[in-house]
């Protein structure tokens, strides 16, 4: 059976290019499944009027009306919107923007894209690996909702970080000391001390990976516990 390829749009609205590179790296193994319209391979305009999936990377600068309009336009064109990477999902390191900083002093306040439009799946990570995107499409195409549930639930969350992990799991006494968070932190901001994670605040880039990887936190999230 020949399945029609999914029509996928990628739009980057401002970030470090890490997520974009991850998507490009994932593409060779996805070519049989998706047709990717990515900014590197097009001139200005989107190739199509409608897409099955739009992958959005980067956070939304709230002082840039052009970006906010573009997000709304993508939402109308795409059946499913995926926020890819921590900036798009939880605003990540962009949370630290406060205006007047180089290289873009005009940027003052970033929000995750679900502050602007409805998002269907949020995949955090700084950046998420190419394999992650390949996995996502595998489960998405198979309609495996159980596997994708965590990312579906994450789509309604605007902020997730090591701080939330400490607040929600450690200070509430729910931590069982498995060490998943320590292994999942890309900046080594988390160290297990006395079998409990300790957060070096200055190192946390608010990517949310530790929270998503914590078995307790992800189980509660997946069960529909509000964040």
């Amino acid at each position, binding site marked *: 059976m020949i399945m029609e390829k999914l029509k996928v749009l990628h739009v980057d609205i401002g970030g470090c290019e890490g997520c974009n590179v991850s998507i490009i790296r994932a593409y060779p193994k996805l070519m049989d499944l998706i047709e990717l319209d990515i900014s590197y391979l097009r001139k200005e305009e989107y190739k199509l009027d409608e897409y099955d999936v739009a992958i959005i990377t980067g956070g939304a600068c709230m002082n840039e009306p052009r970006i906010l309009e573009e997000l709304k336009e993508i939402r109308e064109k795409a059946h499913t919107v995926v926020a890819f990477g921590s900036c798009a999902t939880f605003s990540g390191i962009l949370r630290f923007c406060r205006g007047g900083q180089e290289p873009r002093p005009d940027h003052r306040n970033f929000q995750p894209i679900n502050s602007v439009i409805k998002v269907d799946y949020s995949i955090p990570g700084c950046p998420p690996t190419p394999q992650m995107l390949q996995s996502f499409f595998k489960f998405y195409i198979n309609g495996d909702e159980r596997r994708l549930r965590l990312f579906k639930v994450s789509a309604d969350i605007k902020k997730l970080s090591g701080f939330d992990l400490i607040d929600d799991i450690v200070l509430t006494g729910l931590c069982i000391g498995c060490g998943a968070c320590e*292994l999942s932190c890309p900046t080594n901001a988390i160290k297990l001390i006395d079998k409990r994670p300790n957060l070096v605040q200055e190192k946390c880039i608010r990517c949310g990976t530790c929270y998503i990887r914590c078995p307790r936190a992800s189980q509660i999230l997946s069960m529909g516990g509000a964040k």
Partner: protein
Amino acid sequence: MMSVTDNLLGNVFGIYLVRATDEEILKRKVASGGAVTALLVYALEKGLIDGVVTAKRTEGLEGQAVVARTREELLETAGNKWSIVPFASRMKAKIEEEDLKNVAVVCLPCQAQFFGQMRDFPLLESDFGERVKYIVSLFCIGTFAFEAFLNYLRMKHGIMAQDIKDIVLKGDFLEIYHGDSVLSLPIKEVYSYLQAGCLVCTDYTGTWSDISAGFVESERGWTVLITRNLKAEELVKSAEKDGYIELRDGSHVMGEVLKAAREKLARAQKNMMYLL
């Protein structure tokens, strides 16, 4: 093949009652039928895996992560643990130090969830999911906040940590083997000494694993194995063919496993109401 999908038990490919054929495995203080040990010995000897990462009880209720590469090393680790070690973080170091390419991990549902999610969703470049071949999860009612539990045993029953030989779940009682005697505690009484995180956990069997293992009261001496995918099914079937395990259908104990799973879910929901 049953292919039942139940949120409570996760994906169920097949359910079996299994017993090791190896006398020495059965003689050890294994939790039930020794099936997990036997399966892993099989996988090691056939070269399907190059190591098993699991926990070994050291002293009292403390445990540490260890790598077993041979039957003998594996036998050393058999039995219940009742505590948790910072497993995930040690695991990576162990795998890298020993340069393991295909490992089986024996763990609890929460750890299985971590490994399962890492394998399915590699968020980080430093993930090692592709090296984890089999995730074996043990049925779990929770792990002890062991400082509190040991203190309780000492204060109320005069049992010292170093004298505890084994802890076995029997029906609604927890049997503490210490010195030459056995203390039987109603399970409800020890719930307070479980970690709070375990009291809100909803996963009894380890739905993210490849194989879940545990036991039911009505079939003591046998291990209940739940296979969750084709890979797990093939391991179990070929281990039987090569005489490492004895195997029979376990459909009739499904109800018992479900009951325990429901109890854990109900407990979690109750506790969530006042803990969250």
